């Protein structure tokens, strides 16, 4: 039997703007047990098929608002908590996006609950197909 689902299997898409594909996006859940302010998400690192995304190309969207990782450092409003069990949408700028067919994603969530002497580092991996 399979373990818990981290990624939304229907959440992998290329992003289009004015007829050009400018990147890709996916959705995943925080690997922690309560809702958190985005300020304690200390990093998100992404590799697709072994290719690492640049930090500045990453945006995280919760409750309809997109933030860069740099901006997330100060986001503490209740409206933008990453709720427990909710998907956040992550977008990555990449000219041409991802090709049609099978891919492998490996993302690292680094979350720092204040009471822990260490950070929660969750490696999130899955295979997916880009339609």
């Amino acid at each position, binding site marked *: 039997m399979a373990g*818990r689902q981290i990624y939304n299997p229907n959440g992998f898409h290329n992003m289009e703007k004015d007829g050009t594909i400018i990147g890709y996006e996916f959705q995943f859940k925080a690997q922690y*047990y*309560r*809702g958190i*302010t985005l300020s304690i998400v200390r990093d998100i690192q992404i590799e697709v098929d072994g290719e690492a995304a640049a930090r500045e190309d990453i945006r995280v969207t919760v409750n309809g608002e997109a933030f860069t990782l740099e901006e997330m450092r100060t986001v503490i409003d209740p*409206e933008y908590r990453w709720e*427990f069990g909710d998907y956040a949408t992550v977008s990555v700028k990449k000219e041409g996006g991802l090709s049609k067919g099978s891919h492998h994603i490996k993302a690292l969530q680094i979350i720092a609950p*204040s*009471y822990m002497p260490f950070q929660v580092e969750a490696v999130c991996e899955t295979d997916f197909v880009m339609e």
Partner: protein
Amino acid sequence: MSYDIKRSVSLYSYQDEYYDGRLDLEGCLKETAKTGATGVELLAEQMIRRFPLPIETQEFRDQWFGWLKEYGLEPSCYDAFLENRIYDNRTLTLKEQVNMMKRDIRLAALLGFHNLRTLVSTPMDVIEGSLEYAAEQDVKIGLEVHAPFSLNSGWADGYMEMILRTGTKHFGFIPDMGIFCKNIPSVLRDKARNMGAKEECIKIVDDAYAKRLEKGFVKIKYDLDLGKANMEYRMANGMKEMMEAVEQAGGGPADMMYAGSSFTYSWSEPQDIIDNIDYIFHTHAKFYHVGEDYAETAVAIPEVVEAFKKAGYQGYLSSEYEGGEHLRGYMQVDSVEQVRRHQEAMRRAIEGA
């Protein structure tokens, strides 16, 4: 001494069902009631969306108290998280932290809780600075005593000194029954085997645990640097020697995971409950796996409940299921069934049936 031991469920227990969307907050309350528990413990940040905004509204509170009435539950404990490193470039000042603690005390009171759990990382000054407000709000602050910490230790003495010095009736301890592990939980061993651990290495780790139990665990010291305190504690309890033995036996990542994780469990004498009963008003009944025979594989439920009886405990034992974290990587977790079994195991121990 006469005792009044009641059963509660911490909704932390149902986190896997909640994560999957199989249970929402009301669903968790419904499941809690089905187990026969009469108390409910809440992590507001886990199951109240847009925390803390809804708690400020009459509409949400009416719904909350409506549910409690419908399912016959009493609020037992509010679990607070003092996010004192909410920003990555500094720790909140003492005044900011006290204000955050007061906010949580107020939210707890709004939802009908008279006990609030605070975590081991809470600075003493923050607790002391919140005591007057806690008294005003009729909320007791309980410091969680979670492995590797223990009662009757240098760590606990610091807090005891504060209780005696201030004479407060609004601060005490919330023991987590994970401090009463006779064995390493079976689910951790299952996970290690699933990852490919060697039986020889598992035996080295299990034997080392049994030896620590026999000799008595060396207790952890008080230090705000929890990482440092924890590492000293591990070394004092023979971690280095054990890791070397596992390595010599050809241990790989699965074996090292099992060996390292074994230090997150500990054993205290149940007598510690009796010695500290004047300062215990709520308890986390941590558990990892209860079999079909209603036996917990690690926590010594009957012995600990016996100590609570002897001590004349008046309060809740609140089921806190934590076995799921070892299973969810490779199978679906059934917290609902685990909590049901655990409540029955506690009922038998309390009622002596």
